[in-house]
């Protein structure tokens, strides 16, 4: 092929299932990274990892009831994730133990419960599906779900943007001027859960976190302000989706890990070449200014 973009584009031109996979991943690429940007800015990066484990028992319960059914497993995952988020939030408010500790406690309980459920009736293969998803087998329902989650996330983020930023920067101030801090925090946790549940259809629970966080962290090497971080992180996620899917097709690799590895490669490249604190920039010491 002479066209340099050929190998990148060809699989999507040729195969419907690749186009579906791309559509699903792009939907996830505009919704998960902004959530990840707020998570990293709040120093809650690892919280999304905990939440991704927390939704497992719900999805497993859905699987036990209805088999490999999208609505049942999605609903189960949502219920389990929101329950862990709400419980951790409520215990944090009612006691003096911090939220990260409570979240760790609840997600471990939830994860152990999930593994128990899966082992009660299931094989190792089912567990692999939970963890690594099946982006190449997205049906209409799954695509609608991903599109819906993407829409919901963007609308909700726009609606709570200002109090969410205030809650991140100065929670005490928000408490003194408004009661919206608690609801906004919970709404944000719900968005994390919703995106992880959406992501685990496509990429699996573990890798959904990758598309949420890697672009968000990589974006910090390109821009400093919030208005730049969100679009840059979306762009990086979209690039990772296209190149990851394409590579997985060309080299016959599993698609979920390929997408996340592509995002990881973009993170490493950003870390090296990014203009905001990238490693290469550090080697060249710029002359200081007069004032």
């Amino acid at each position: 092929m002479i066209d340099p973009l050929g190998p990148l584009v060809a699989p999507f031109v040729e195969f419907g299932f690749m186009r579906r996979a791309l559509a699903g991943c792009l939907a996830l690429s505009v919704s998960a990274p902004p959530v990840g940007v707020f998570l990293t800015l709040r120093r809650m990066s690892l919280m999304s990892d905990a939440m991704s484990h927390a939704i497992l028992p719900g999805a497993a319960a859905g699987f036990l009831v209805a088999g490999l059914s999208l609505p049942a497993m999605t609903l189960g995952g949502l219920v389990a994730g929101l329950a862990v988020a709400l419980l951790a939030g409520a215990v944090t408010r009612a006691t003096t133990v911090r939220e990260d500790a409570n979240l760790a406690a609840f997600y471990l309980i939830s994860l152990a419960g999930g593994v128990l459920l899966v082992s009660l009736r299931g094989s190792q293969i089912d567990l692999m599906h939970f963890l690594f998803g099946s982006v190449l087998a997205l049906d209409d329902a799954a695509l609608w779900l991903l599109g819906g989650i993407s829409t919901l996330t963007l609308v909700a983020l726009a609606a709570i943007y200002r109090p969410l930023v205030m809650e991140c920067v100065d929670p005490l101030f928000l408490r003194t001027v408004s009661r919206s801090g608690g609801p906004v925090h919970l709404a944000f946790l719900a968005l994390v859960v919703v995106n992880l549940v959406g992501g685990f259809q496509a990429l699996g629970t573990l890798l959904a976190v990758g598309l949420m966080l890697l672009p968000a962290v990589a974006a910090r090497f390109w821009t400093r302000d919030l208005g730049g971080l969100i679009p840059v992180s979306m762009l990086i996620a979209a690039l990772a989706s296209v190149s990851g899917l394409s590579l997985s097709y060309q080299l016959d690799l599993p698609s979920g890990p390929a997408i996340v590895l592509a995002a990881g490669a973009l993170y490493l490249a950003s870390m090296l070449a990014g203009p905001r604190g990238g490693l290469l920039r550090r080697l060249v010491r710029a002359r200081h200014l007069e004032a």
Partner: protein
Amino acid sequence: MSAGHGSPDPIRLVGLTLGYDRHPAIHHLDGTVRAGDLLALVGPNGAGKSTLLKGMAGEIPCLDGRIERAAAVAYMPQADEIDRSFPLSVMDLAGMGLWRRAGAWRSLGRHRRAIEAALAAVGLDGFEARSIGTLSGGQFRRALFARLILQDCSVILLDEPFTGIDTRTVDDLLALIRSWHAEGRTVVAALHDLAQVRAHFPTTLLLAREAIAWGATARVLTSENLARVRNLSEAWDEAAPVCAGPRADVPHDHGAHGHHHHEDAA
């Protein structure tokens, strides 16, 4: 919006006990902060100054008694919980003060002038686009004062607002506080610098977990009162019995004297 004299008392403390783990940090405090008061809270570490301000701001629940607030309160804590690594501009930080008027969705665009004026009033003109992480300690304090200006509350609570700030900035901020006082706003500030209190604050509450004296600054900050305050034991008594109620020798209920100024309670 100014709360002139004759407005209802903005803050009344009734048999107020505040504390942590049942141990009182403020014990059976009665009194009234009157509209237009410029009140200094003075006392040693552990006397309950910050606790009282937190209580007035609604940050901590009362262990006993109650706080009656008549108006919205602006509160500047001693140790703020602000994440200064967050990518936020000075303009946006100050603009948070507009929450009551702009809420979650209304545009801040038409308030741009007001934000710039508030930043200019604290000597931060030209800093609008700077990220909050690049400010020095004093500049950051000024930005928080700009936010207080924009909050435009009739009651302002300040917890050690001048700690670690250079004298020029302190003078500027004191001038700002005096202008608030002149506008009829009520200001309560926890302070350690007695000379500053004597020079700028007409009324003082001397605290040592209980009110030692509350009234005109000159009559409160006497050497006798200050000596009594120094005897405060900071440590909790883990075996302390349950409090049976206010002791007879502790003066309280300044509010009963009507609308005159507090008298020296000692």
